[in-house]
């Protein structure tokens, strides 16, 4: 720093001249969720330039998919957005089924909606809870995680795993729903609402929380659209776009639910949109539980796609052959390419699949919503303070597994 030479008349006019400072934030920083590096140019506390560098969690998802069967993509897909793996399972199933040209039975569609909405609630709870915690509010975080555990209890009962379920199948689901599914979900819904209310009571009139959320990390509508932003982040800017409403898939057109939108596109709006979306998910869950048939097939009836029943594999040659062919060679998806999209926790989760007619995917491209959302993180941060990075980055909800693949 240069020494101050000139005489100053008024002390209030004193400005400390400073050179821009380089600061590395991450990749090993608690608020960077472990996987992002930001190279900051700081003028005092003000961010002049920021280079967001993802890639620290790159595992080669797309390359790995090109070496197994179509069915073997599921475990990889689970690990994309590992906070809501069921939504990835559903997204990939729908993409592969679109390429195959099949539709799963109605009961399965409801089942996918229920499991998917539960996963969405878990996703939003994590984002909002962690966001609050990073601003010092630890109690709401624990409350949110408590509810997430209840959600996971249901998912565990259904799929056998709390997080990486690998429960989807091309043409159906691994198992039919348990007998207690509806009962469990119905019992959980009021509990979720209750905790959401408690969390809001804790935060929404809290000065610390409001000061760091309101008017911080503003994203404009035009930029969001141009950059391809989707999900709660886009809706917080006031754009009414939810894949479930705009391009209904599964049975989403049969439910009565609203798409919450924000106004300012700041962190506060993103928080509110996510909270409201959880309430809407609860509405969908209640309706889905009412509408879902109690019996009927879950899987499509086509031995070229679905594995046969285990007892048949052991006793009949036909099922043995079907099992053998599907496991050893995989489902033969006819040549073609499709782009299929669903609404995941962070926005539009797209799969662009190319098949060459063999049992191995030729190309599996995942359009990761948070990678595309993160791309304009720079614009949201310029001119803000260093401390604002934490709530802003938190409300973008970058999930390393999905962003870096």
């Amino acid at each position: 720093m240069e020494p101050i030479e000139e005489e100053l008349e008024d002390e209030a006019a004193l400005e400390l001249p400073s050179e821009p400072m380089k600061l590395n934030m991450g990749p090993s920083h608690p608020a960077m969720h472990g996987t992002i590096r930001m190279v900051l140019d700081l003028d005092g506390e003000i961010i002049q330039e920021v280079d967001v560098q993802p890639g620290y969690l790159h595992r080669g998802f797309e390359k790995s998919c090109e070496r197994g069967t179509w069915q073997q993509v599921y475990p990889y897909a689970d690990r994309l957005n590992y906070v809501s793996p069921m939504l990835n399972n559903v997204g990939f199933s729908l993409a592969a089924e679109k390429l195959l040209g099949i539709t799963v039975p109605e009961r399965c569609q409801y089942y996918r909606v229920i499991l998917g909405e539960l996963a969405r609630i878990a996703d939003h709870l994590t984002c909002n809870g962690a966001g609050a915690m990073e601003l010092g509010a630890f109690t709401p975080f624990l409350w949110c995680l408590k509810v997430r555990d209840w959600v996971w209890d249901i998912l565990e009962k259904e799929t056998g795993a709390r997080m990486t379920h690998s429960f989807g199948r091309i043409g159906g689901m691994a198992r039919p729903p348990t007998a207690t599914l509806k009962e469990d979900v119905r019992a959980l819904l009021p509990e979720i609402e209750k905790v959401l209310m408690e969390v809001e009571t804790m935060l929404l009139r809290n000065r610390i929380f409001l000061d760091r959320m309101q008017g911080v990390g503003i994203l404009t509508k035009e930029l969001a659209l141009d950059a391809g932003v989707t999900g709660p982040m886009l809706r917080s800017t006031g754009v009414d776009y939810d894949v479930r409403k705009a391009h209904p898939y599964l049975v989403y057109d049969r439910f009565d639910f609203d798409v919450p939108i924000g106004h300012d596109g700041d962190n506060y709006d993103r928080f509110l949109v996510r909270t409201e979306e959880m309430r809407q998910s609860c509405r969908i869950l209640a309706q889905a539980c009412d509408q879902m048939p109690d019996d009927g097939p879950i899987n499509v009836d086509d031995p070229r796609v679905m594995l046969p029943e285990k007892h048949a594999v052991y006793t009949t040659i036909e099922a043995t052959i079907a099992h053998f062919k599907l496991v050893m060679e995989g489902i033969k998806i006819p040549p073609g390419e499709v782009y299929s999209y669903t609404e995941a926790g962070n926005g539009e989760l797209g799969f662009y699949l190319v098949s060459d007619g063999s049992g191995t995917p030729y190309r599996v491209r995942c359009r990761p919503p948070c990678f595309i959302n993160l791309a304009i993180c720079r614009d949201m941060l310029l001119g803000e303070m260093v401390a604002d990075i934490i709530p802003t980055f938190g409300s973008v909800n970058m999930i390393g597994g999905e962003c870096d693949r």
Partner: protein
Amino acid sequence: MPTFKLNGQDLAYQPGDTIIRAAWRAGIEIPHYCWHPGLSVAANCRMCLVEVKSGRPMMLPILQWDAKKNEYVEATKPKLVPACQQAVTDGLEVTSQSDQVKQAQASVQEFLLLNHPVDCPICDQAGECKLQDYWLAHQTKLKRKATEPVHKVKGVRFGPTIVYDGERCVMCTRCVRFNEEVVKDPVLDMRERGNVNEIVLSPGRELDHKYSLMNEHVCPVGALTSRDFRFKARVWFLKAAPSVCGGCATGCNDFIDFDPRTQEVQRLRPRDNESVNQYWMCDDGMMSYRRFHEDRVRLGRVRMGAEFTDVAPTAALKEAAGLLAAAKEGGRKLGVVLSAQHASEDNFVLARLARDVLGASAVYLAAQGGWDGDAILRDADNNPNRAGATAVAAQHGFASLGTTETLLGDVAAGRIGVVLALGWASKESSTELAGLGRVPMISFTSNEGALPSVATVVVPVAVHAEMYGTFTNRAGLAQQFKRAVHPPPGIKPAWEALLDLARALGANLNLGKLEDVRRALPASPPPAQPAATA
């Protein structure tokens, strides 16, 4: 060229073709079990039924279930014909995709699996079984029969090489026809009828002729399996490399099936080549893969007096270079032995080395002594590349090639003072070759044998499954083969090892790459009269 229409596509055919053969020529598969391009037509599996649309197709009256009326109604359907038996005529219109055909295929498939045991997990054919491929492609429904299947004999030893499983058999009679028509030894036949039908041996006989292993490969299902390959590997783990059999001078085209994880060759399998081996191979040829792993020389060897010391391949090579340099200084005459067992590339580099660097006095050709040939495939000369080695020698001006016998004489008479030999094969046994031990001898060899046993220095090299190379067969056809497995660590193909030797002697042959060697190889002579194959 006359044409006909198959599924709307114009296909050329040759006069006398059946529908299935004309389609096969065009690379289109009509599903079939009993038809084989090299065998007569039996038309007993009924899988290849197709609908002939041109002319006046015969219509059969049938009763068809009408779900709306909830009763059977009268209808007609075209009579289907077996594509393996129906000759093609000009402008014939055939479809193999109509509903009637699909229904027929599904019914045949259901029928063939009626009594099939749940054997896939323990069956060696799994993965290359037509029952599996066709079920998923042409039926996909469970069978309607719920009763206990008919049980038949299992695991019957048909001979030293083949085991029969009656329950898996689909009675296509390909094996019966193969033994009768190709081998002319009708040792198999069919007994009984209906669902107790089975394949049996002729009384008092065994399946023990020289082509018995081919029965495994003509069998479309897992009924006949090879005792050698049984339970050794699962085919979906294996990769194949197109190669040429090293068993005899016929040069049958084969696939080397190997496990890429263990780098082990598991079997040889015939590869179609109508001008060489058609679709067949002999037992000895198919079993010659054992030489890739058995009796291998994996380390270099140096002899001190009567004692052998194992050394690294590079050390053996250095020793060999020293020996040759000393011999040259001492003015000892060099004899070079080419090998009829090695690829032309190996022989070429050795001949080039002998002429340009070492100044060899005489060149010999080592070869195995021959076996019993026949008129089907087996040549009396059981060396794969005698023609190639001879051509390479002639190219380098070594017109008269001695044999190992004349080499013995020359060494005894003192006309040769040092020997550089390629390969393990020789007509004589190691005791007969003991006379060579009197002079320093270097052996480049892949396997143990008479030549390495009398050598002073042994340098290990790759077998032909471990290299890219060329064999010239008895008809003068030069056939290239590809590498299947990697050589053991430190071991190179003979031509590369010989180039290393030249480098150690301070010479540069300007042959760094396989392309360089292949470009310099003699053009294959005009093929002689192709040998008669059955």
